[in-house]
């Protein structure tokens, strides 16, 4: 009976949403969006502070924002403050997981229910290196290709997860992660404050943005993405460690 009420309630809500959206003249129909009506067009043309003309990959230099990947330009420059908040969300969840599960360096690994053999251990080490390198690559090229600090950091963490799953003796130093996490986070805020001091505004891009498409371009964006990558990687690895260890029960 309770389930029926829940079912009727949620279906009614869904029908209401669909009806209301289809009858809404202002809500653009799926696939027929005119970007010129939205703020997004200015992100693509990079003309928020002034008209730079057509942005051409490999030629245009020093536009207001030098990232070839427009999503990155929004995430780490135009709406960088959101990203600072996002990093904080992940930071506080990692902190909360550690607080709840009472994480300590002396906690013991949870045992695997099989004995990892030699091939598994060596193979996972080799894969670890490959995944780690991919993660680093994705972070470094975040302003040029799809990717960036968040996916790259997650890849780094997943390489560590692989080691945890393949080797029952493996254990990382939680303290090291904490250090990395705290330092990377502080540097993000410090870069923001440097923007306030060297330029005019908090989180302003105070470095020259270079030529669109170069690896060394886009000012602070690659630096911020490296910091985010380190922070996300160490935070998620920390969460993994917290879940896979537990307090030793002293008898």
């Amino acid at each position, binding site marked *: 009976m309770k389930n029926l009420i829940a079912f009727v309630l949620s279906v009614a809500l869904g029908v209401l949403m669909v009806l*209301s959206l289809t009858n809404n003249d*202002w*809500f653009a129909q799926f696939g027929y969006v005119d970007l010129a009506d939205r703020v997004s067009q200015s992100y693509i043309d990079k003309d928020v502070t002034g008209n730079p003309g057509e942005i051409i990959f490999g030629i245009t230099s020093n536009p207001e924002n030098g990232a070839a990947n427009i999503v990155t330009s929004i995430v780490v420059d135009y709406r*960088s403050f959101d990203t600072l*908040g996002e990093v904080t969300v992940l930071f506080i969840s990692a902190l909360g997981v550690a607080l709840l599960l009472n994480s300590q360096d002396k906690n013991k690994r949870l045992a695997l229910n099989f004995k990892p053999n030699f091939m598994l251990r060596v193979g996972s080490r080799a894969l670890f290196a490959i995944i780690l390198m991919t993660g680093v690559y994705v972070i470094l090229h975040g302003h040029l290709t799809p990717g960036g600090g968040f996916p790259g950091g997650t890849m780094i963490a997943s390489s560590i997860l692989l080691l945890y799953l393949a080797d029952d003796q493996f254990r990382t130093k939680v303290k090291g992660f904490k250090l990395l996490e705290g330092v990377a986070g502080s540097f993000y*805020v410090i870069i923001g404050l440097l923007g306030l001091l060297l330029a005019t*505004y908090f989180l302003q891009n105070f470095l020259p943005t270079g030529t669109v498409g170069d690896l060394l371009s886009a000012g602070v964006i690659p630096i911020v993405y490296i910091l985010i990558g380190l922070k996300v990687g160490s935070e998620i690895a920390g969460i993994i460690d917290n879940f896979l260890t537990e307090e030793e029960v002293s008898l």
Partner: protein
Amino acid sequence: MSSLAVLLIAIPLIAAFVSILSKKVAPYLLLIASLINVILLFYFVPDGIVVIGGYDLPYGINLFVDTFSRTGLGVVNVLFLVIVLLNIVEFKKYSSVLLVALAGLNGLLLTGDLFNLFVFLEISGIAAYLITTSNHKPLATFRYLIIGAVGSSLYLFGLIIFYGMFGTLNLMDMVSFIQANNVDPSALVLPAMLMFIGLGVEAKLLPFNSWVKGVLKDSNTLSGPMIAAVYAATISFVFGRIINNLLTLAFVGNLLIVVLVLLAVGIFIAEAMAFASTKVREILLYSSIAQASIVILLFVNGIVLWAVYLIIANALSKTVMFLVINKATKDHGDDESDSLQGVFSKNILVGITFSVATLSVMGLPLFMGFVVKLNYLTELAVGAQWALLAVILISSIIEGIYFVRMLIKLWYPEKNEVTVKFDLGFKVVFVAIALILLALGTYTAPLNTLDNSIDTIAEVIDNG
């Protein structure tokens, strides 16, 4: 420099990141950061729009400092500092969490961007879940987490529909676009309701508030006042800002009636539950649910100024009440009003301050609550909102009965000995807050210097 308001968020944030490196330094960082915030706020932060990243709105994110956000920041930061000072020794473990909470709350009050508001809602929300883990009731915290996450998802859903309609995420830009194009209110119904429900969950409006009971009923001297006073005040301010500017555009005709009926029913149910309860903390939490609904009701009716004062009066009273009861419960182990009977007969000073706080919430003369209630009832009468007036008056009577019943129990000595020791710090805070409530209740001139236009977003839009 006009960008100084950013420091209200940046300083606690950087302190939080540094604080996880050393457990010993963390509490000091918390104290220093919250003190710096209060000083910055009262002496250095100027009014105006703060641009972040060098991109003007609506392209970049902006913070908005005016009398409205400044009032909210003042209440929240000062109460935060006071509560932290009282609890820092006992809850050292939570220093980093509290630092993030402070950054999140300030961000919520300051931001002028609706998506940024969602991010800060999540930051302060997760910090709140962690603060409530100090109750050692993981199940209640889990419920809070699930309901809070659904609430903020609904808010985000509403926001995205708004974005799909108007192509901007900035509150000011969106409002001016809607006004300039005379958008039909019926087009705004779905996103506005989704936002209203989403924020209503966080602002503990009935019927979206099933998390409140579990969280507050076992609270301690940190989580109780933090959630019931500081968080409640912040969410009310933010909700008020959104209602004043954006949601009023949708709340016309039938939808307005639906919203008002929803709020009125919420007030009645909450008061009835408070009336039926015998546990002191349950009475307090249901009464604060009712008060939160009244605040939102006032915002919906455009009575901004007195809604703001009501938030402040409630935050002050609730701080005292939850601190007293949670401390008494901790020493005594039970908060049935029968077993706490006569707790004030030995703690006369604390008893007087607690009674002042309660009488102020009830709205009896001499205290701030009375002035506030008198004024908003007058404004409702001027607006000829007789039904709402009746709702609030009847709820006040119910409130009066159960609060007086509770006070009599707490004062009247019984056979069983109840001894609770309050530290000097607690007593100083209680007396200070009681004096503020008394002062503003008798000398009302400072309250009348402002008017309903303290939320200046509309003015800024008019001036381009």
